[in-house]
């Protein structure tokens, strides 16, 4: 595709019209199949050859491609964007998109490891150019652990994952409330806006950005939105994904009193000022790391120290060998530090990831590392996870499952729960304060469960199982505890358990037999969203649960996609997202409907018209916020969706719709060209190829709705349409039978 930098002419927004030219090509090349290919070649030549001073003629020459009929589209598989719309099974590529989203969601719930580094360690790392200290150094590498990670689930079968990750956080400030100037939602909107603007300048219009991915199911922008959303939630008592599973206590070989420092760091984190808030369970794994400075210190010393550490602290130790000098791009074995994938909106705004995303190679700001260092860090993280953290988590889950959960599952546990809930005889649950019908473990003044209470432990166990991707166990555990939270009126916990229960059920690839399940999942999301929104007024979490609902239901396919679309509409209705978010959700609705495939063998069951409508609406909104290129992408998408259901490309049967779409097309075209510095205002919409003259040329091949064709009891609907509208000429060659 052309880009503005090449000096090639401006490409018109693709959606202008199913134009005259299409007819022209039809009449010129009766045998369309091969003809279009050659036509394309010609046009490609013409495009590269022509000069930028005459953009409009070029634009018109290009129209035939853009507006080509499905047959010719399938002929042009060279551009990804059109390849995806090749007729036959337009949704072939879509499974990848949803897999992608699934993986994104799964990776969002990675275990958290707190970093607790000594002063000298941070100083060493800062020397290397990482201002944030040790955590900044390891964080990008933790996001994907190289190689397969094998996890055993509760029934003893193991499964290997190659997209496992870990999230490193600083122990300081963990669990503090998000004290940004505005809410995460507003920040997210800001990030989106920033991204949009930067895309406009760097990519020359997000059309190309969209085309690169090809799959309309996941535009980069909505992916960014999802990632932002999933990384925006701060650590809260009601879910333990943000609670550290382990903490890495790091010292460097520069330290003069290493063992003493380690002890001191440990004490700081368990009793001192870096102690985590009360609602975080304190018995997480401690992992000790000695960072050896390759350039200044003696390895023999460090090995001796390391042996000593191993004797003191057991197996959870690691010797990390790093070079202390800063690496620059010109160094022999320099490698670029991968960009962080999971930046919270706040970090995005403060410009953490900026250097990687915006600045070209070679400029300062982009951190580089020696190859040996990068390898050492990767090995360290892999060892940390595979040998310590994951076994620790597996062990915990097994122990809790044995000690806490099974007791609840047994008959006596159930009886106890029941009797607790309805104390026989006395005054029942209306009692005052913490007791009275509930378990009494919920601290109503601070709104959290003590971490040792069975409820908190079960929630933690479920979260661990979720992070270990044992969704079956997670779902059953959430299921078990969700009503308890309701009885205790711990609404946030209640909402969280419902949300995660539904999510883990949806993630579980095996389960989910029938509609009943879907209904119950719907119900759970409903409850979660009500609890979050109405009872706790926690909009970010509500938005997260609804977005997860949309994405996961959509990836389920079938009738679930409609539910997904409904949830997306709910999000808009609740006003959880602002203007750009609204538009993104419109696109999501369109994508949900578009992914509903027709019943096999029949022509009905798809939701093309609905998808098309939402795309058009999204295009309208993009135009209103001044993003004509995005609008035109949406418009094009809508055209593709409508192509199957409209008799004539781009000609709607309803007059008001037609007017609206025509005006929209024209407005998009004008704004698009204006944004590129051309004055297109003199073109009036009347000149739009959808003129009357063209319609008279249009040859309508079908006399029936497509859904009726091939079905018995064919209705002999009249082919004689005398009404204004798409004319029908019976003598048309029936070259359209493939579509029927």
């Amino acid at each position, binding site marked *: 595709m052309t880009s503005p930098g090449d000096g090639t002419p401006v490409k018109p927004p693709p959606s202008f019209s199913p134009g005259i030219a299409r007819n022209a090509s039809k009449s010129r090349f009766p045998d369309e199949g091969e003809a279009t290919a050659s036509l394309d070649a010609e046009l490609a030549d013409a495009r590269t050859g022509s000069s930028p001073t005459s953009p409009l003629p070029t634009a018109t020459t290009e129209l035939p491609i853009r507006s080509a009929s499905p047959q010719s589209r399938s002929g042009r598989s060279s551009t990804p964007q059109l390849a995806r719309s090749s007729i036959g099974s337009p949704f072939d590529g879509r499974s990848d998109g949803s897999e992608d989203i699934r993986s994104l969601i799964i990776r969002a719930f990675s275990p958290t490891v707190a970093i607790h580094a000594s002063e000298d360690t941070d100083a060493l790392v800062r020397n290397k150019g990482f201002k944030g200290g040790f955590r900044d150094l390891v964080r990008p590498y933790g996001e994907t652990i190289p190689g397969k990670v094998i996890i055993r689930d509760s029934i003893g079968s193991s499964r290997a994952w190659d997209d496992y990750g870990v999230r490193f956080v600083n122990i300081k400030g963990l669990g503090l409330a998000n004290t940004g100037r505005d809410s995460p939602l507003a920040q997210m909107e800001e990030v989106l806006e920033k991204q949009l603007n930067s895309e406009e300048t760097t990519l020359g219009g997000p059309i190309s950005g969209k085309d690169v991915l090809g799959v309309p199911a996941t535009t980069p922008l909505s992916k960014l939105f999802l990632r932002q959303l999933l990384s925006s939630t701060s650590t809260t008592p009601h879910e333990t994904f943000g609670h550290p599973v382990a903490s890495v206590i790091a010292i460097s070989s520069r330290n003069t009193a290493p063992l003493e420092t380690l002890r001191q760091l440990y004490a700081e984190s368990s009793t001192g000022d870096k102690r985590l808030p009360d609602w975080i369970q304190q018995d997480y794994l401690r992992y000790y790391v000695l960072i050896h400075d390759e350039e200044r210190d003696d390895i023999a010393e460090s090995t001796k120290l390391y042996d000593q550490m191993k004797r003191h602290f057991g197996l959870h130790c690691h010797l990390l060998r790093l070079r202390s000098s800063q690496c620059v791009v010109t160094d022999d074995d320099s490698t670029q530090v991968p960009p962080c994938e999971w930046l919270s909106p706040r970090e995005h705004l403060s410009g953490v990831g900026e250097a990687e995303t915006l600045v070209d190679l070679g400029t300062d700001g982009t951190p580089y590392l020696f190859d040996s260092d990068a390898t050492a860090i990767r090995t360290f993280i892999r060892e940390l996870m595979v040998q310590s953290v994951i076994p620790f988590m597996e062990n915990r889950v097994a122990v809790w499952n044995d000690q806490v959960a099974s007791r609840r599952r047994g008959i006596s546990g159930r009886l106890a729960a029941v009797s607790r809930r309805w104390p026989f005889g006395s005054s029942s649950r209306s009692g005052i304060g913490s007791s009275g019908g509930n378990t009494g473990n919920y601290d109503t003044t601070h709104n959290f469960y003590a971490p040792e209470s069975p409820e908190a432990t079960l929630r933690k166990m479920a979260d661990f199982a979720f992070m270990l991707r044992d969704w079956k166990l997670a779902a059953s555990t959430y299921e078990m505890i969700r009503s308890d939270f309701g009885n205790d009126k711990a609404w946030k916990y209640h909402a969280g358990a419902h949300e995660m229960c539904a999510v883990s059920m949806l993630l579980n690839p095996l389960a989910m037999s029938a509609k009943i399940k879907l209904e119950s999942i719907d119900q759970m999301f409903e409850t979660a969203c009500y609890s979050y929104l109405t009872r706790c007024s926690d909009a970010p979490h509500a938005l997260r649960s609804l977005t997860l609902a949309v994405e996961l239901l959509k990836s389920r396919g079938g009738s679930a996609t409609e539910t997904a679309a*409904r949830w997306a*509409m*709910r999000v*808009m*209705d*609740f*006003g959880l997202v602002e203007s750009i978010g*609204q538009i993104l959700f419109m696109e999501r609705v369109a994508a949900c409907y578009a992914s509903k495939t027709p019943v096999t063998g*029949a*022509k*009905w*069951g*798809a*939701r*093309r*018209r*609905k998808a*098309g*409508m939402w795309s*058009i*609406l999204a295009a309208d*909104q993009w135009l209103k916020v001044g993003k004509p290129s995005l609008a035109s992408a949406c418009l094009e998408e809508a055209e593709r969706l409508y192509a199957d*259901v409209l*008799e004539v490309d781009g000609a*709607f*049967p*309803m*007059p*008001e*719709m037609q*007017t*609206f779409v025509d005006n929209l097309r024209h407005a998009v075209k004008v704004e698009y060209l204006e944004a590129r510095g051309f004055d297109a205002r003199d073109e009036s919409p009347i000149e739009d190829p959808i003129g009357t003259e063209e319609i008279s040329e249009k040859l309508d091949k*079908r*006399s*029936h*709705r497509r*859904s*009726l064709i091939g079905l018995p009891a064919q*209705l002999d*609907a*009249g*082919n*004689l*349409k*005398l*009404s*204004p*509208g*798409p004319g029908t000429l019976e003598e048309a060659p029936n070259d359209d039978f493939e579509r029927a």
Partner: protein
Amino acid sequence: MSYYFTILSPTDTPIFNIAFGTSKGGGDGIARFRFPDTAQYMNQFIIHSSLDILEEAQWTNGGMYLKHIDTYPPASAYISAFLTPSGTRFLLLHQPPQLPTSGSSSTLGASSLLASGTTRSSSSVAANPTSAQTEEAVRQFMNEVYESFVKTAMSPFYRQGMEIRSPVFRGKITAAGKKWL
């Protein structure tokens, strides 16, 4: 309650359109949709998009009256459909009046419905678009329209797929709307 009624030919071409409001409970029979005046095309978009559902419903539902088939939540527009044996579709979009208190933030549902003096009582049809009474009222309306439609279609000057311009027909539809909705 505002109504938008469309008859579509088997090839999706509209052959008759009418918008009207409820006449029950003191309504003045004037349609007040939630869309601003500049966005009246939304009715057609919604109707058109519900054809997806209709095409599915017509193979699963034996009757001619397909009942309430689709909803467009952002504007709380409800679609009921009726299918004639010749494949002509009657589609009725009904939209309950927006309550003055509901601060819907939906961009599309932005209301043009001013708090006009007509206080609509909670007559069963207007209040709840999915209730049994509404279904019944719509069914009666559809049947009456069907009768008029058949008579019109049997006119020797009418051919299938032609737009219906007969003022008599329009009058009959209006009357049916007044009577039932």
